[in-house]
């Protein structure tokens, strides 16, 4: 068995918030919290990075537009030059429409796959589901997960600290 971290269950959001604040002050950085409903300010307290997905979507849009514009340009200028009513081969006003649609498609694809990647798709499930206190039957509490990869993590010490912070249960999580 390889240890992923320890998970502590708290009875209410106030206790969880207090625990997060204290553990952050003690220098823990690799933590995650789980709650049945949105607890305001918790993400900022945990030092969660703002989502980078908008940049991925912007990149997808630009890539889609550039790719399709180049594709049209290649097809009408190099592969099969065709004179339509005396218009220039590089008819950019007409190309822009298709390039715009490709930008939307690129943005949508980037959002879809970026979202999957951000949720670590190749992983089938998050290790936290290995914890019995996190199961559906016993769930509904407010959880704080401290990863074993945290430089401050000492199994016994960390478990003791969480217990003293008022955790109802403290459990080891298998990777």
């Amino acid at each position: 068995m390889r240890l992923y971290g320890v998970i502590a269950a708290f009875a209410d959001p106030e206790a969880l918030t207090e625990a997060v604040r204290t553990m952050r002050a003690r220098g823990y950085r690799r933590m995650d919290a789980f709650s049945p409903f949105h607890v305001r300010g918790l993400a900022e307290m945990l030092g969660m990075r703002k989502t980078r997905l908008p940049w991925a979507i912007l990149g997808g849009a630009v890539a889609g537009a550039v790719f399709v514009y180049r594709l049209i340009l290649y097809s009408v200028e190099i592969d099969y030059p065709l004179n339509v009513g005396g218009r220039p081969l590089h008819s950019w006003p007409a190309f822009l429409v298709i390039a715009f649609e490709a930008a939307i498609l690129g943005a949508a694809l980037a959002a879809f796959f970026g979202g999957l990647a951000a949720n670590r798709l190749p992983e089938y499930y998050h290790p936290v589901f290995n914890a019995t206190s996190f199961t559906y039957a016993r769930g509904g509490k407010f959880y704080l997960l401290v990863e074993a990869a945290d430089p401050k993590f000492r199994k016994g010490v960390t478990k003791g600290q969480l217990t003293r912070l008022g955790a109802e249960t403290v459990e080891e999580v298998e990777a």
Partner: protein
Amino acid sequence: MMRLATERLILPALAVAAAGLVLCAAGLAFDLRAMLAGWLPAALFLLGLPLGALTILMVHGLTGGRWGEAIRQPLRGLVTTLPLALLLLLPVLPRLDLVFPWASADAAALPETVRLKFSYLNVPFFLLRFAACATIWLVLAWRVLDWTTTDSGRGSAGRGKAYAAGLIAHGLTVTIFAIDWMLSLEPEFSSTIYALLEASAEVVGAYALAMTVLCANRSIEVMPGGEEDVALSEDLANMLFGFVLLWAYLSFMQWLVTWGGDLPNEIRWYLIRSSNGWQYLLWLLIALQFAIPFAGLLSRDLKRSHAGLLWICGIVLAGHYVDVLWRIRPPLAGGGVTAFWCDLAALAGAGGLWLALLLFVLGRPDGIGFWRRGPAHG
């Protein structure tokens, strides 16, 4: 606070107006045609603002939403200036022949395609249409100001049909107005999208100005928006973004269709506007009313920054003026770019006068009440 700020600006606005009007009078004596060419874009720009405000108020009456409740007051102020904005077009009416080719003395020499339009494009019918449009607008303004008096609650509920009918009437009159006063400057050109383009441009201008007024008076970046964790300024800025995108879409579509058709009568509209220095105005227009707002309004930080919002709204408003100038001015240009002092004089004269009235109205929200006393204006 608001009252003091606006009242302090009324006198400078009037001073600018006086200087501008003196210059305009000199221009009238000096070169009547050039002066009218400078006056027309300024007057059409100013008339577009209350008309756009009317559109937004009626659309909001149908859709609802917190953005509209916040921005209603400055929009109502804009609508109140409609009578003055209509008066600003009067100086053009006696000498239509100096502005519109179809009314000029040598109209008979115009090409066949234009002469076929004379049953519509003639002076008496033009004046009749303008009087009808003005009347409908004044009635609409009077009714809409009355419907939007309640600041909250009751509001638009149950008035959906009235707002819808008003929007239909407004759409038809703006179509006639755009064809008569703008498209017919080049009677050989036709564009079925143009009236909608003008209506969306009016909305952009009116919304940018109303948001500037709102932003200058209140800290909208900390007021609550329609959803949790969203500032009111974000909602308002997103609406501005939407209006700008609609305008850009329609502008591009007209260009795409005309460019694709490449017919002599139509493409000339763009050729005139992309030569003799007007191409720089076009680049400025694209920068002010598309590129800068598009890039800027993608940023949430900007939408939550007081100074940033003021800048973006000011830039879009300036872009709207450049838009009107670019669409109206080139076919009227007599002396080319050198005649621009006429434009400046007209903008100072008409704009200063109009701005003084707007500031006066904004300083007294209850002053809009003179519209409600009776149908005298309608």
